[in-house]
């Protein structure tokens, strides 16, 4: 019987690169992490999210090949091009399942997904719920600007009632979703809120999210200077607003308290709303594999297949 038509091509030529011992590797500089110059409008909130992502990589001495940056489509989702590391720019709304494929097959990587409010909660709403409930290990940062930026000012699922967009000339009529509530009720195990105008806080939230073993979600208010200027002034002390942290007395493991916190009127509170140490999907799958592998221990793949076929004679 014929086997296969094609032999596997050798993957890459041997380039004989002297391996650099891990211990001698220095952390990356900002210059080494930055790739293309961002195409965002000057003043766009997304710049600070990017800058703080660089800071995080710098601070935690993460190497190029250890981090993967994944996004869907939107202004915010152009993110991967600006990061000098492995990255993928996928399709609108589907960054999470793509990132899940990376996360579930590669436990050795830090997986970060960046998304916009439309990308994450409208076209990708279904994936948001399911990735959260499955608790697939990764960090999702949604750069929420309450508008569709890339397509030039249509109503987004987080646009407040009354917002005049090109698709709601008389003001948005639909009740906006509340990302915090959405995440908590979907079963996300790390739910935090921050804003681009407070860099230290953004870094703090991203770092805590990265260290969380599970699906960690950070909503980062990120102003669209072009189509929704002033949207977040009420949360910016420099514009006369107030930035208030989640009270220290808040119990992050209390789902109802978190939900209540999320119900506050804008600008609300900033910080970690909810955190739970539920086992991840990654761990669940690894356990199944370990249990099954125990039964096939010492066998080569072809022997396992042969054994299965014995039952089909």
């Amino acid at each position, binding site marked *: *019987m*014929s*086997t*296969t*038509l*094609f*032999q*596997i*091509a050798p993957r*890459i030529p*041997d*380039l004989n*690169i002297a391996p650099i011992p891990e211990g001698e590797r220095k952390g990356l500089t900002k210059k*080494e992490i930055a*790739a*293309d110059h961002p195409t965002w409008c000057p003043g766009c909130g997304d710049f600070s999210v990017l800058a703080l992502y660089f800071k995080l990589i710098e601070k935690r001495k993460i190497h*190029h*090949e250890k981090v*993967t940056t*994944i996004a869907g489509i939107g202004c915010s989702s152009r993110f*991967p*091009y600006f990061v*000098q*590391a*492995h*990255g*993928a*720019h*996928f*399709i609108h709304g*589907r960054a*999470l*399942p*793509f990132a*899940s*494929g*990376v*996360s*579930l*097959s*590669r436990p*050795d*990587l830090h997986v970060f997904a960046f998304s916009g409010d439309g990308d994450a909660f409208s076209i990708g709403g*279904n994936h948001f719920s*399911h990735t959260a409930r499955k608790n697939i290990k990764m960090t999702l940062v949604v750069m929420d600007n309450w508008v569709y930026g890339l397509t030039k000012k249509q109503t987004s699922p987080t646009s407040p009632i009354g917002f005049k967009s090109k698709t709601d000339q008389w003001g948005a009529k639909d009740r906006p979703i509340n990302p915090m509530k959405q995440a908590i009720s979907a079963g996300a195990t790390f739910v935090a809120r921050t804003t681009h105008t407070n860099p230290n806080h953004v870094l703090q939230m991203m770092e805590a999210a990265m260290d969380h073993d599970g699906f960690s979600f950070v909503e980062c208010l990120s102003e669209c200077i072009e189509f929704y200027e002033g949207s977040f002034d009420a949360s910016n002390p420099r514009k006369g607003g107030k930035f208030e942290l989640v009270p220290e007395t808040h119990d992050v493991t209390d789902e109802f308290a978190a939900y209540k916190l999320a119900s506050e009127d804008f600008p609300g509170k900033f910080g970690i709303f909810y955190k739970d140490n539920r086992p991840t999907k990654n761990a669940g*799958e690894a356990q*199944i*594999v370990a249990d*099954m*592998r125990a039964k096939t221990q010492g066998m*080569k*793949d*072809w022997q*396992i*297949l*042969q054994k*299965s*076929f014995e039952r*089909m*004679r």
Partner: protein
Amino acid sequence: MSDSVIAPKATSGQPQASRISEAVIRIAGNSQDGIQAIGGFLARLAGRSEQEVMTFMTIPSTISGGPSIFQVRIGSGEVLSPGDEADVLLAFYQHSYDEHVTSLKKGGIVLYDSDHVEPNPEREPNYRHLGIPISSRTVEAIGGTGKDKGKNIFALGLVAKMFDLNIPKLEKLVTERFTGKDQSITQNALNAFHAGYSFQLDSAWATFHFIEGQKQGSTQVVMNGNEALGFGLIAAGVRFGAGYPITPWSDIMELLRRELPKYGGSFIQCEDEIASISMALGASYAGRVAVTGSSGPGISLKTEALGWGIMAEMPLIIVDVQRGGPSTGMPTNVEQSDLNIACFGGHGDSPRVVVAPSNVEDCFYTAIEAVNIARKYSVPVIILSDQAIATRIEAFEQPDFEKVVQDISPDFSPVAEHKPYDLSAPDGVTRHLAPGTRIASGKYPVVTGLEHDELGHPTGSPKLHQDMTEKRRKKLQALGAELPVPKVFGPPEGQILLVGWGSTQGPIKEAVERARAAGEAMSSLHLKYINPLPQDLEKIFAGFRHVFVVEMNDGGLYGHGQLAMVLRGRYADPKIRGINKTDGLNWKVREVLEKARALAAGLDAGKA
């Protein structure tokens, strides 16, 4: 080979076992009666006896069961199709009898449960009727509780008697089937089997004995196309997959979910088909060529992400187990109407690879080949299976496991520099490096759905879009040049060439055999590589007066089915014409022959 093998015998007092080379047995009842189980036992037994076997079944689309059939054709020679007509019908109910008695060959035997079936006096002269109180005898043998569960096994005993089947082998199969269950269940099954086997025959019974099979010495395995495809993917080295349930694709995902962890892999059930293909693409990107799949509506949902896979040049396997469409269509019926979406579905110029297995064994090897094409050309490959091949059981020679099982685990060796979309690469083939790979130049790639430069960064350059579009197409032209040219079945010249693809190979070949036996100059050509096509087909077509493309899809607005349109577009040859149908059933050999003869006769008359 295809003549009526079980002609009615004049009863000469003593029943004599006549030697036969093949038989078609149709079992009709309700799906909850374990009809599939009897068929499965027979198919498996044939496999263990070095006989060829092919089955088909209908499954009711409702979950609560309902009328269902299982047809098995066992032969000592080559078996190409499940058979147009049956030699023996086993009918459990009145509706089974009424519906299926005419599927028998003239003079065929109908074995019916006389507790439920009242034969039709009009039919009696045409078929040999044998009534057996199957239900009450089963109750007698194993008690009332086993009535519904045991009568299939009782009937298996009857068939075993009638065809002089190997009893120890059947007992072993029955025992194996119930291992892990309560000992009393196995005992009950064996009791029912023996009760059927020892049912007192009257002298009117004809019994038969199969001539020894020819495939001496080789070990046969017996399974359906979905199983063969699933195991083929495992053999190919696929260790990650994602999917969403839909008939008839679900079996493959269930198999992979169960089996992959044994090999250190994983299959994830997603929230929908879009998530499934996205997750599979994520895993492919991460270095593990992954599989997703679906049927009908689920394939439509995957097209946007498929386009990304083509643009980003990501290896990926997409299994499409075709069923009747469009929309929810005919979920448990067969159709070959996804060729267009497989070859062309999606926006933009988006060349991808499409291959179609032609029998159950081919499902196994096609899966391996698809994976290797996907890797070699860094491209999504669609495997076009269908409901018929997915559910039918065939026996085939056990693979050489050590030889075919591949290790395709990712390689993270560092490289000096890397350009994923290198325009100067031979044949324009992209090589991706999975995350985790160090690149000494410090320049890392982005994989993307935007038109891009050689590093994967977005570009609006008209020249680059043109060059990259060409690159994505050229590599498939290179693949096309490498594909083996298919062989003509029958002489390379003649009146009619039947062209088929996918699961219809068997009935088309059998039609050609029958036509040639009748002195007609007919041959056939079966295409496995649908996109790109192999080279030199025009040279093959040149040898025939007519080229008829036999497909289970609609003749379309212009009178040609989906493959016929592609071939006409490719070869601009007006003698390429379509023979099509959309009744949701497999081609019968007779149907193919009649349509081909009629079409040729009409054309020849017009020309004369």
